[in-house]
């Protein structure tokens, strides 16, 4: 086997350094630093209010941090501080290089146009002007996320939660991003649908060599998806390491509680 076929690349794709976010006098997250590489899935776990989503929003360019830097290996400008880029450059980079899968599909989909148009939008945002080609690419992607292509022209409101998430996944992968943010991507789904979707995500991540930053409070999701975990508590990272090491031999008191609190069936 040659070393080049490694799923995780050796150079960093994302470098976060000393990231701190204050909401007035309330702490969102404090002094968070980490690297991510292409092909790597980083899980952020912790209870509600631990700063997971604040961290995700800061890193994904939605929420300027109070301090610290976020550098990303952009297609257009190489390694750049995303908040030092001009706004149009940053927005363009977000369209070209990133994806964002929301927990609630209503936050990530345009509910007034069809599922197909939702999936095709990133192509048009990047200059696609040939209907037939975009239609075909949309159909190909809907098949890839195991979505009934016969319903391509239906509105998202008429889809089940699992179908909406499949549309969201296709919409966020069709343009070939380098990094995809996921905020509890299977959070609102029932267990059987959740398992199928997680499976699908795992496959896509491997096939596309995607880097994924996934926020979840579900330890099973973390174990299935993530190569590495960061455990957050009260806005700070309390433990980080290989997923199975963090879950099977947690070192920090909080992580020990978190892991031992998972209900067994």
């Amino acid at each position: 086997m040659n070393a080049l076929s490694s799923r995780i690349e050796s150079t960093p794709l994302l470098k976060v350094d000393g990231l701190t976010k204050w909401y007035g006098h309330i702490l969102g997250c404090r002094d968070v630093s980490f690297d991510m590489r292409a092909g790597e899935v980083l899980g952020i776990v912790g209870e509600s209010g631990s700063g997971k989503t604040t961290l995700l929003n800061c890193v994904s360019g939605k929420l300027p941090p109070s301090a610290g830097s976020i550098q990303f290996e952009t297609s257009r400008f190489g390694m750049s501080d995303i908040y030092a880029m001009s706004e149009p450059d940053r927005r363009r980079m977000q369209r070209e290089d990133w994806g964002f899968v929301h927990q609630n599909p209503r936050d990530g989909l345009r509910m007034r146009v069809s599922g197909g148009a939702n999936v095709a939008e990133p192509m048009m945002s990047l200059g696609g002007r040939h209907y037939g080609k975009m239609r075909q690419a949309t159909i190909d992607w809907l098949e890839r996320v195991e979505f009934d292509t016969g319903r391509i022209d239906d509105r998202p409101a008429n889809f089940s939660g699992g179908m909406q998430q499949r549309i969201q996944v296709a919409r966020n992968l069709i343009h070939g991003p380098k990094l995809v943010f996921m905020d509890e991507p299977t959070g609102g789904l029932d267990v059987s649908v959740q398992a199928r979707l997680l499976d699908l995500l795992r496959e896509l991540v491997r096939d596309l060599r995607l880097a994924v930053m996934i926020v979840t409070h579900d330890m099973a999701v973390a174990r299935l998806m993530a190569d590495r975990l960061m455990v957050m508590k009260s806005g700070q990272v309390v433990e980080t390491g290989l997923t199975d090491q963090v879950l099977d031999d947690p070192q920090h008191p909080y992580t020990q509680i978190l892991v031992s609190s998972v209900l067994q069936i």
Partner: protein
Amino acid sequence: MSVQTGSNNAPERYYNYAYLDEQTKRMIRRAILKALAIPGYQVPFGSREMPVPYGWGTGGIQLTAAIVGPDDVYKCIDQGADDTTNAVSIRQFFAKVADVETTEDTSEATIIQSRHRVPEKPLKAGQVMVLQVPQPEPLRFLEPRETETRAMHAYEEYGLQYVALYERVARVGRINAGAGHPVMVEERYLMSPSPIPAFDNPKLGFSEAIYLLGAGREKRIYAVPPYTRVRSLDFEDHPFAVQTWDENCALCGADDAYLDEVVLDDQGAKMYVCSDSHHCAERREAGHVGPMAGHQLAQAEKEPAQ
């Protein structure tokens, strides 16, 4: 054609000339100048309460009030017709408050205010076309946040508009399914040409006349100056095309005008007639005859507008 002579209403006029106060007209003129300087850009303005409800042309009325003078000749149409209630009322309004001559003749008018149509007769230098706009933001249907649509215009992020076109092609199989087909002005600003039919879109490009568009409720003014490139959006494999009809105008026989479908009875009988009433009447006067010439509809149009 019938030209009404403007009367001098000054002694009995309770309002300032052209209804709006002078400072308001200045404000609107400044917005117009900026709109002309940046073709297609939506200039916010302090829209005033007008004596008609929003949606009845308050944007167009304010534009007209700001540019009209006693020497102007004013035409007002609604869906191409000079004789509809709204058109007649607005025409009377300006005859009263601006002492302006009114006309139905497109070539005589210096200011043509319109809801949803551009006259068939090509406009000339010196004419100003004022269009009433309900929703100036073409992206609004898909992006409800004003902060976001402003950023999209600023950074020319117009991919979203194609999502609307994609949806149209997916649903009805063609790209222009009606009115308000979005255009790119000078390849810079995306613009909604008010809900004029796609048929009229090509008239906006390289026109000799000035196009002013005003949205009273949404408080936006924008413009297309003369000789400006205006391109209707389309896909490579679904090019933009204007509507065509198998029929000719039943009254004047025109085969190149925008036609309205008129239902004649509850048995399904119908006829197609020019939407532009003055254009049709002028053609009939010149001797053009359609298959249903002499129909009572043509008689009704002979009555002078009030």
